[in-house]
């Protein structure tokens, strides 16, 4: 060792009493204690550090990945967050959003305690109240509804719910007597989930075994920037690329190149909304060349060949695809050369294991059934080459066992209320829908159902995040009592009557299913420091509210608080609470593939969540579940609702041309709102200055918005890079900065998501534009999905 410049002279320095962070040190001793002892008299310190340091595991909530985190708490302050090396999603890594989370915790714009509105709605005049007052008031309102016999007039809109939270909300609302527990899924992942349900029969997002895949086709799945579980995808991608002996190939099919397209081995710009045609053309080539998995197709699938449907010869997948999706036909639709389609098909079928990836969010929703049909097509493509439930293919998510929830106490008011039609029309007005978050506004304004009297918003900011969110403000006029659980005064909370701030994820108890790898696991979010402000976990709050309500609602929640609820719920995960707390997670590592046709295949993989069609272990190329669901609607009725194919094609993965909003001549571009790795999908991230600073790395911007247009086209049209431009759709217009980029189809423009906030805090407010504002606010008539990606725009110089 060198004597000079030696960075640390040990004896002079400090002694460490226990473990410390650093990649190697974390596993067994997640709780470390680092203390410095006094230096000997007359000697200089070289490294000065904290006197007290703790490492506390928790789970990130800056995006839906749910990465394990180790919080380094120094003298009571969270100074650094590291990825937990134990956590299978992130394997010790942490993305910029997770790294920047201390700025969320210490954000000066956080609400310091519960607030009650005193001025007009939206005036921003509040008075602080106590939590007991808040509990009393909410309980009183809900009791009032129940006393009037209309418990269904309470509604809860929720965003990201983790672990038990969704079931907890459903239970709470059920106990009160309302069916209106409405998820924001219809804005993003619902199409993918329905597509999987109608084919594979599980109401889940597919998971992908990228680690073992040789060939990956990504259909608009911006897997390296913002998928459902970006961190997991990145880890899989990285392993596929260079973690093993043979490097896998990724082909990214998307109008926008983005980071994924740039990193992929091949980027194929495709006409937006035509992925289904491309997928089916690939299937066409695979079927024609006989490269499909005949064992799977023959023995474990339904509807590949034509079949007899009560005497009628129903068209199967094979003949439908062969008849309609020749690569040359697809070339006309998609703009992808037929030779490329054939080549990709050959590569896909010839390099097993191969997998096609669908976007977890965005991308798929295109105004009509096309999104759903595309999701179905992707599943069918995977099934066709036998990649379902196979190494390097599609994995099906399993969960940790949880005890059954105790039965709800018998309650006639609640039971009657639960039977009411949902306020969002899911399952009724939208026959295929599970949730229709964005439709709530219109349906309230148009008084489609009963009035909503109590609206609760959990991690829901529809005014910002729903297309045309301004309509929610209008709808709020008809709702007498609105409660928001937002940590910040966001766009929607501004119009609430009560804001009951929830602590940040670093200060609260919550569990988290580990999703994305297939195998079950549970993560535990725990307060890494005492809550900084007078906040209350929404779980705790609702339990308190239930307790404050009249029987029998109060009896439905036999738990003291949300933490004890969790302890109760997680009793079967295979470890004790202390271990869970110490490690921050528990899991059953390793995905166990079910052999085709065996009981686990039938119970867990194929058909698990089918409600109406047989759970027989057959993968549906021809969706029986879908045909049961729309059994009431004949072909004409379906057409009246906007279906563009008739007959059996409706139940097969098919291609439906997108119904664009806006005339192509007047509005030549399709508007696409993209989520970036930096700002992510959650509104609060926009108020983290660090994330704002790195937000526009892909184009070299910082803080603010821009709109991306094809470079050559832009120059042709007389635009210069960084011009100020108006982006105008039939629904409104926005002014922002134009950036000319090379990797972009000339008929598409992009606006990054999560800017253009009108509230939240000093860093987010009035910065950039929100592309969703000018997007189509309509809902797809079958599924109730928000259909906003069918918005056409024009741009011109400001």
């Amino acid at each position, binding site marked *: 060792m060198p004597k000079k410049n030696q960075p640390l002279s040990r004896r002079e320095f400090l002694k460490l009493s226990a473990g410390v962070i*650093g990649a190697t040190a974390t596993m067994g001793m997640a709780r470390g204690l680092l203390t410095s002892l006094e230096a000997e008299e007359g000697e200089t310190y070289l490294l000065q550090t904290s006197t007290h340091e703790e490492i506390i595991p928790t789970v990130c909530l800056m995006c839906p990945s749910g990465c394990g985190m180790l919080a380094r708490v120094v003298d009571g302050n*969270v*100074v650094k967050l590291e990825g937990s090396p134990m956590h299978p999603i992130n394997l010790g*890594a942490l*993305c*910029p959003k997770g790294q920047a989370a201390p700025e969320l915790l210490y954000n000066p714009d956080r609400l310091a305690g519960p607030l009650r509105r005193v001025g007009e709605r939206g005036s921003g005049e509040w008075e602080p109240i106590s939590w007991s007052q808040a509990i009393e008031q909410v309980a009183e309102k809900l009791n009032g509804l129940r006393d009037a016999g209309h418990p269904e007039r309470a509604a809860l809109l929720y965003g990201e719910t983790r672990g038990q939270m969704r079931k907890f909300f459903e239970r709470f609302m059920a106990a009160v007597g309302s069916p209106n527990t409405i998820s924001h899924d219809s804005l993003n992942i619902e199409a993918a989930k329905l597509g999987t349900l109608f084919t594979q029969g599980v109401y889940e997002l597919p998971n992908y075994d990228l680690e073992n895949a040789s060939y990956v086709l990504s259909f608009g799945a911006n897997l390296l920037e913002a998928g459902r579980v970006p961190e997991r995808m990145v*880890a899989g991608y990285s392993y596929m690329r260079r973690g093993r002996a043979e490097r896998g190939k990724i082909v990214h099919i998307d109008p926008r190149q983005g980071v994924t397209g740039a990193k992929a081995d091949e980027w194929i710009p495709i006409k937006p909304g035509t992925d289904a045609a491309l997928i089916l053309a690939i299937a066409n080539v695979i079927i024609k060349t006989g490269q499909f998995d005949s064992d799977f197709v023959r023995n474990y699938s339904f509807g590949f060949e034509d079949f007899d449907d009560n005497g009628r010869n129903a068209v199967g997948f094979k003949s439908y695809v062969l008849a309609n999706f020749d690569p040359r036909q697809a070339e006309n639709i998609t703009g992808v050369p037929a030779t490329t389609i054939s080549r990709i098909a050959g590569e896909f079928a010839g390099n097993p294991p191969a997998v096609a990836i669908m976007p977890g969010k965005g991308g798929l929703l295109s105004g009509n059934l096309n999104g759903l049909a595309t999701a179905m097509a992707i599943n069918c493509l995977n099934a066709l080459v036998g990649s379902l439930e196979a190494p390097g293919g599609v994995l099906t998510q399993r969960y940790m066992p949880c005890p059954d929830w105790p039965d709800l106490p018998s309650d006639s008011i609640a039971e009657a209320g639960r039977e009411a039609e949902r306020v969002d029309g899911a399952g009724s007005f939208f026959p295929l829908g599970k949730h229709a978050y964005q439709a709530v506004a219109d349906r309230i304004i148009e008084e489609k159902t009963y009035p909503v009297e109590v609206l609760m918003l959990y991690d829901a900011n529809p005014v910002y995040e729903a297309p045309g969110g301004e309509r929610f403000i209008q709808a709020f006029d008809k709702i007498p009592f609105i409660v928001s659980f937002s940590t910040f005064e966001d766009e929607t909370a501004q119009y609430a009557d009560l804001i009951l701030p929830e602590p940040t994820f670093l200060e609260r108890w919550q569990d988290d299913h580990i999703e994305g790898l297939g195998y079950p696991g549970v993560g535990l979010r725990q307060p890494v420091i005492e809550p900084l402000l007078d906040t209350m976990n929404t779980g705790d709050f609702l339990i308190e509210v239930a307790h404050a309500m009249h029987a029998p609602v109060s009896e439905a929640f036999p738990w003291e608080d949300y933490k004890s609820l969790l302890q109760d719920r997680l009793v079967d995960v295979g470890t004790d609470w202390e271990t869970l707390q110490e490690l921050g997670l528990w899991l059953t590592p390793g995905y166990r593939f079910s052999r085709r046709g065996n009981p686990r295949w039938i119970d867990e993989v194929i058909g698990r969540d089918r409600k109406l069609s047989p759970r027989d272990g057959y993968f549906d190329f021809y969706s029986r579940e879908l045909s049961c669901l729309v059994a009431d609607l004949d072909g004409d009725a379906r057409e009246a609702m906007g279906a563009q194919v008739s007959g059996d094609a409706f139940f097969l993965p098919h291609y439906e041309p997108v119904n664009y909003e806006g005339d192509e001549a007047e509005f030549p571009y399709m508007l696409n709102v993209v989520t970036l790795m930096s700002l992510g999908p959650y509104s609060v991230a926009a108020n983290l200055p660090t994330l704002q600073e790195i937000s526009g*790395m892909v184009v070299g911007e910082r803080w603010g918005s821009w709109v991306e247009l094809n470079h050559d086209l832009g120059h042709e049209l007389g635009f210069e890079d960084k011009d100020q431009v108006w982006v105008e759709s039939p629904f409104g217009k926005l002014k922002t900065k134009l950036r000319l980029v*090379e990797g972009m189809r000339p008929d598409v423009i992009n606006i990054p998501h999560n800017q253009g906030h009108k509230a939240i805090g000093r860093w987010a407010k009035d910065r950039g534009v929100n592309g969703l504002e000018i997007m189509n606010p309509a809902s797809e008539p079958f599924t109730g999905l928000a259909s906003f990606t069918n918005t056409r725009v024009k741009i011109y110089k400001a």
Partner: protein
Amino acid sequence: MTNWSMVVDLDKCVACQGCSIACRFENNTPVVSPEEAALGRSILWNDVLPMPINPTEDIGEYPHSRRRYLTRPCMHCENPPCVKVCPVQATYRDEEGIVRQNYDRCIGCRFCTVACPYGVRYFNWETPSWSPEMARHLSPERVVGQGSLEGPAVRPKGVVEKCTFCIHRLQKARARAESEEREFRAEEYTPACVQTCTAKARFFGDMDDVTATASILASSPRAFRVLEDVGTHPKVIYLQEG
């Protein structure tokens, strides 16, 4: 003698910028206002650059255009131009090959920032500031000596700062080995960016140890160095895509 060095596999890197932000929280770099940021005054010791950052090379015509991304910490050059020009030895290369920066001695002449071809050196155009709430997440660690202040210590205005390969982590790891009365192992020292790398694209280690992963990767046929022709001999080695 250790010779610390980093390898970045661009085939794995996904340009997520986790490294940049891990660095920020590890090393207390301040956030600057949007106006300052527009002037390029953001301080990100590790930055991710869309390449080519300037139109010095063609990235091809649509649809065959291809952006690349380069994550760029300090290169800790073996022949660092910054060290040569510093009039007061506020920046120097220590015996383990880390190019360090002493905030207590820097006179703010910005010669090093001008001399560095990689733009890894950042000048404090103003006093770094955090709101009282935000200041709570600052790391209390600092490397101090007689007339020297290094590491994550909050910098005064008017001095230059840069990536140190998280020098305080090295010192901490050594101290820990010492307190546990055992040999220090190179694997115990990992800079924050390497630790957080989402794609596991970064490798760090002792180049003089032929068995270290980093030094094995550095001999890969894909290995290259950025701006090799300016003669800086960077110790951050990249592995090509594809």
